[in-house]
């Protein structure tokens, strides 16, 4: 298992070298969005309107953090389950999104779109939320404050630990990992 340091915005050439199963330490700006924010973002795209952040080379982290205490940058912030965003993801990838972070497998349509667009899907450890928060250096709400935990936040992360699930060649760590350890009775 290789460990690769990546910085956002993601560079297409570097992404092509990532392999499913690699470990990634991600640094730079990323954006948070989950169900309700995705619905609004995709509605903007469909109406030809501008998004609250630049999608080119961007990374979206599927998370709704716990509210920060006074003086705290980020409270617990682990990944939410990704499949709920599957319906919205291909159009975001078609508009320049290069990476998504969540937990659990993606649909065939998302996987095909990632191959077509040279994008990757990265897994964070679900439930390891206090540890992940310690890699967040800055956090601010940039859109949809009314959504509370589901608002879009700009985060600056430093060496956020992730695993490459889907690489640009179409490999899938869920399929590979489960096949390796499945025992038939």
């Amino acid at each position, binding site marked *: *298992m290789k460990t690769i340091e990546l910085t956002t915005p993601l560079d297409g050439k570097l992404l092509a070298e990532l392999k499913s*199963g690699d470990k990634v330490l991600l640094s730079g700006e990323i954006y948070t969005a989950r169900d*309700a924010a995705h619905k609004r973002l995709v509605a903007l795209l469909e109406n030809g309107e501008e998004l609250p952040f630049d999608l080119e080379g961007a990374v979206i982290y599927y*998370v*709704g*953090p*716990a*509210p*920060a*205490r006074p003086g705290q940058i980020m*409270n*617990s*912030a*682990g990944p*939410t*389950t990704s*499949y709920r965003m599957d319906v919205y993801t291909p159009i975001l990838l078609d508009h320049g999104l290069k990476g998504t972070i969540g*937990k*659990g*497998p993606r649909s065939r349509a998302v996987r095909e779109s990632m191959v077509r667009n040279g994008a990757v899907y990265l*897994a964070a*450890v*679900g*439930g*390891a*939320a*206090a*540890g992940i*928060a*310690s890699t967040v250096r800055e956090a601010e709400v940039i859109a949809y404050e009314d*959504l*509370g*935990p*589901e608002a879009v936040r700009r985060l600056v992360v430093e060496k956020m*630990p992730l*695993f490459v*699930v889907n690489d640009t060649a179409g490999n899938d*760590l*869920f399929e*590979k*990992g*489960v*096949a*390796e*350890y*499945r*025992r*038939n*009775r």
Partner: protein
Amino acid sequence: MRELNVAEITRAVKELSIETNIRLPEDVKAALRKALQVEESPLGREILQVILDNHVIAERENMPICQDTGVAVVFLEIGQDVHLVGGSLEDSVNEGVRQGYTQGYLRKSMVDDPVLDRKNTGDNTPAIIYTRMVPGEKVKVIFAPKGGGAENMSEVRMMTAADGIEGVKDFVVDRVSRSGGNPCPPVVVGVGIGGDFERCALLAKEALMRKIGEPNPDPRYRRAEEEMLERINNLGIGPQGLGGRITALAVHVKTLPCHIASMPVAVNMQCHADRHGERTI
């Protein structure tokens, strides 16, 4: 007849909501440590270590284990010789949730309307409240914050007597198999059998309250639990679904009598952050 002010219930709910979200029960931590020893996949072991490290960070920093601090599920066992005074019982529970989730900096995850508005209620109320009258003059409050990821992988199936115990086992294993990495494995699997449509779903949730390692009192269901656990851990799903030996920490079955025509079965999935706590007032 003992008089009890509902403010006591508010206080218990508030304290439990904060405590359960920061500190896991010892039986769950022990099960995860054991999983780390047994796990064959190097990636699986690494994930389990990250999960165990996270418990330490959460307790040290006073942070929730998981950002999904759940819907507030509250079981109340009310002694029939208790006279509750000082206001409405339901309001007192919701006030405890409101105070705990606000003052504890826990995430508010409830929306007011499930389909049309989906506006966050802002204080994690209303709670899901189950009350049961029991003998005595005490009130027991069980608090179980339930995350959405695992709850979404749960299912009720109206099976038939002909399906038998083998049918139950196949359904449970299949439900876990179809869940893959979504419910944050390693999971605890709550299985309710019997009652009726809605009661068996509640049974499955009640089954999750049993301590890991505490055997089922019925040896036949104990064997069924062991067999289901073995089959689940042969699925290869592993920690976080990325492959490995440990997909579930335990399978807990709870049963009730049911109609001659029916055999309702419910599977309630619980993520590895198996949070629950109780207080007796």
